[in-house]
């Protein structure tokens, strides 16, 4: 825990500084030829989407470990991951339609990336609902939801991709011109730092909560 307590403030502080500087860094990027100003949504949309994936996979893998070993630590990380997946999912699902309205002319399209993001967001929201309303023993059940949720993502993606697709290919980001790539990576780093520090903070909160429960129970006895 002690290495954590020094790492978290440092990472969080760095993330905040990077976020504060982000508008200036994004401003150095040239305007995209067809989309102009709206394309700048990308510098927040793409890192938020990557953080969503990171959070979802963290939750899925931690759930898998919890199912196997019943380690309390894995469960705490899984809860933190699921909550962050929902939060970053909200960012992705608001910035996406705003951008789509301006460039595609529609708010929403049932395309592979959009649909699988929405389904993923629904799964991790149902994880939190189960956690909150499932009563005692819901840790194990939600671990199964987290694990299935992670395994499902490629299926939803493939099946919707087969159905129809409009969203740009994933090869767009590595092939960006340097003046656009730098702000994109800058924001990606800021988002991932924020993700990691929030994950550790939230997991620690969950650990403290279970410690508190244990102490309260011991006191009653």
């Amino acid at each position, binding site marked *: 825990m002690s290495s954590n307590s020094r790492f978290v403030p440092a990472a969080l502080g760095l993330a905040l500084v990077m976020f504060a500087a982000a508008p200036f860094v994004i401003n150095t990027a040239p305007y995209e030829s067809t989309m102009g100003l709206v394309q700048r949504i990308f510098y927040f949309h793409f890192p938020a989407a990557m953080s969503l994936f990171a959070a979802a996979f963290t939750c899925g893998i931690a759930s898998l470990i919890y*199912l196997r070993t019943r380690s309390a630590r894995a469960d705490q990380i899984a809860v933190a991951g699921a909550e962050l997946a929902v939060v970053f999912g909200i960012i992705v699902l608001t910035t996406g339609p705003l951008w789509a309205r301006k460039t595609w002319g529609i708010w929403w399209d049932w395309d592979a990336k959009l649909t699988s993001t929405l389904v993923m967001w629904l799964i991790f929201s149902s994880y939190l609902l189960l956690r909150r309303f499932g009563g005692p023993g819901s840790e194990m059940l939600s671990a199964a939801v987290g694990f299935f949720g992670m395994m499902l993502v490629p299926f939803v993606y493939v099946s919707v991709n087969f159905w129809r697709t409009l969203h740009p290919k994933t090869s767009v980001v590595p092939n960006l011109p340097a003046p656009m790539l730098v702000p994109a990576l800058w924001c990606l780093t800021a988002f991932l730092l924020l993700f990691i520090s929030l994950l550790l903070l939230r997991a620690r909160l969950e650990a403290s909560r279970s410690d508190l429960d244990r102490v309260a129970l011991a006191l009653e006895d």
Partner: protein
Amino acid sequence: MTSVIAAAWQIARKDLRVEARSRELIYTTIFFAFSCVLIFAFAFVREGQPIPNASAGILWITIAFSGTLALGRTFERERQSETLRALLLAPVERVAVYLGKLLALLVLLFAVEALIVPIIGLLFDAPLGRAPLLLLALLVSGTIGFGSVGTLFAAMLVRAQSRDVLLPVILYPIVVPVFIGGVQGTSAIFADEPALAMAQTWLAILIFFDAVFVTLALWTFGPVMTE
């Protein structure tokens, strides 16, 4: 391996016998499915004619809704008579309990589908006879996909609070691929210009989903159902 299958068969037979004696699930599920179809008829029939291509969607939504109802009830029955603990204490592999429950549920859902699919064909002009084997294969693989994930989560939720609400909340997002595959495959058959090759591809995706998720459910059932 044979002992697991034998035990699963015993559990399925037990469930089916309970059902054959009360006929509670089959009657209520069929009636519920029929009511669903009726509501769809009010929504999707204009001037006496069904909206084109609505029948595939109606078929799969009805399966999803009535399947959820049946799933909730099968395990509610075990909970009410407090037999789930006995079932889990039985000296058989956990996997056998899961397989037995799944098998009994599938028999029930197939019985419901055998009745509801012709009704939908009749009421919504769906060309059921165009590729009957392919349609059957889509229905079977889709129902197995839905049932395999559903049995796992319904079993898990037996001991949870507000399980009636949580079952569809958890189950529907996870079975999204089954419904994309089922609806798309079926509407490829029902379309004015049928695309049977397309329906076969969807069938392949459904079978692949079934294989992966039955394996995952078998693997997860043990740890999740341990107290």
